[in-house]
């Protein structure tokens, strides 16, 4: 536990800020460059950093792989769900305007927030899933074999 003390402390400080920044990028995507893709990657970075410093088991304790898999699917379903909702309202798939037919622009606004949320969830999930998949493979060579 005494190894890499600085790394551990700094990581603990950073993880929270990274997550906060991810939310900022996610929700400020309306007014400035940003959105689900970028926010999702930043969010995943927080967990990957935690995993790199504290080990895979620790991070999987926080974020178990089965939840990651569900999140990947959930994001896509949220995205498609918005589209299906538009269809049920009698408009085309992903016609966000239908969410508020009297003020199409408001509807667009609501729609895109949900869509970006879906994208963000899926990208977070996918990035963490990729990290888990690679990190979870037992190495063929031990640290001493190099």
């Amino acid at each position, binding site marked *: 536990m005494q190894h890499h003390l600085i790394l551990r402390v700094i990581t603990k400080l950073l993880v929270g800020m990274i997550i906060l920044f991810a939310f900022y990028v996610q929700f400020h995507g309306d007014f400035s*460059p940003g959105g689900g*893709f970028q926010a999702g990657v930043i969010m995943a970075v927080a967990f990957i950093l935690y995993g790199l410093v504290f080990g895979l088991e620790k991070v999987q304790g926080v974020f178990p792989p089965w939840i990651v898999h569900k999140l990947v699917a959930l994001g896509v379903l949220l995205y498609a769900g918005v589209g299906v909702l538009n269809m049920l309202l009698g408009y085309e798939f992903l016609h966000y305007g239908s969410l508020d037919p009297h003020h199409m622009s408001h509807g667009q606004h609501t729609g895109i927030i949900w869509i970006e949320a879906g994208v963000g969830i899926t990208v977070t999930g996918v990035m963490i899933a*990729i990290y888990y*998949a*690679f990190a979870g*493979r037992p190495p*063929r060579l031990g640290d001493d074999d190099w």
Partner: protein
Amino acid sequence: MTLEFFLGHVNYWLFIILMMTGFYIVVSRGNYVKKIVGLNIFQVAVFMLYISIGKVTGGTAPIFPTDSQGKIKVDPDIVYSNPLPHVLILTAIVVGIATTSLGLALIVRIREEYNSIEEDDILEIEAAMAHAENEEHGSAMGGRA
């Protein structure tokens, strides 16, 4: 070929150099990881081509300015860059990430099965397998055709 022609198409020259570098790596290297790296360079070249064609001289970020009430104020004097290629490339980047991670995942599995990620070694092992199959299943014809 004048200097002006060369400078005027500088983005295309860079695209061609980068693209051919990547393509050459994919074709010439026997190491599977290096091939993936080459593939990445190859794809990035295309991303750069797309992004460069979205540039409009003097253009700014394509966001309409709004007034205090949040109404969009269209100003015909402002020149905007073309955002469409950027959006397309966002998609292509995602595709590129998916391809890279899938390729690397396959390499991990290949390494577990073959104990090598060098094309020469793997081809040798596969040739031996094909030879053994031919021995076992009789016919001398064919094999790895």
